[in-house]
């Protein structure tokens, strides 16, 4: 009977070891899955460097007031509107995709 108990304990221990050995492989596969990767946020200085990405005008990322934010929003809308108006004037020369190439 003791031999049976001993065999059972050894088998249980081996089973635990096998599961423990599988875990790193499973974790590796899990981390490699693109769906589980953290989102890569751009570090492009043009985006966060305090200048307008469209015309390079200085932008205050830390706005002093809500009026500052509104001024910068309106500036951005104005710049984009110019691009859209240019495209609408020459739809044949500029395909629609050109509109979405932003810098």
């Amino acid at each position, binding site marked *: 009977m003791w031999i049976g108990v001993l065999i059972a304990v050894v088998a249980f221990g081996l089973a635990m070891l096998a599961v423990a050995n599988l875990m790193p492989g499973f974790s590796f596969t899990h981390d490699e899955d693109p769906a589980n990767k953290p*989102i*890569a*946020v*751009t570090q*492009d200085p043009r*985006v966060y460097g305090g200048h307008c*990405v469209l015309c390079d005008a200085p932008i205050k990322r830390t*706005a002093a*007031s*809500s*009026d500052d*934010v*509104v001024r910068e*929003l*309106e500036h951005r*809308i104005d710049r*984009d*509107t110019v*691009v*859209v*108006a240019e*495209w*609408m004037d020459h739809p044949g020369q500029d395909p629609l995709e050109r*509109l*979405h*190439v*932003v810098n």
Partner: protein
Amino acid sequence: MEVHGSLGHSPLFAALNATECDELSALAEARQVAPGERIFRAGDPASHLFVVRSGLVELTMSLRVMGDVKDVRFQTLGPGHAFGWSALVAPHRLTMGARAAEPTGVWCFAADALGRLFEIKPRIGSVVMRNLMQVVSQRLVEAYALWGRELQRHVDDTWRSEP
């Protein structure tokens, strides 16, 4: 009151003859707006169509910025341009706000009076509504294009392909 000339220059009334412009002029009410004065706000019931007579009108959208609700200028309209066209289209609810950027004169048309004229004079109604479709279509294309660029920017700023 020299309404006729102003209306003739408005894209909304293009292709109307002089007699038809006169009939529209009879419905026009002149209004002067001070700089910064709000003409209407988004969400209000739309009861009047407006045409800029002189000066500049800014179309605005409301955003909450740093705890304040602010009107952000989306578009600036000069003489001849129509706005407040939601008055002619169900559900007759204004989609944007409007304010004067400088001393500005506008022509106001009551939507119900215009509707009655369109019933009596179907050609005027047909021309105005066809022109209105062009105005709305252009606004829609502009809005889609601006929105598309902003989405593209969001994609570029957030996700980046691995080098």
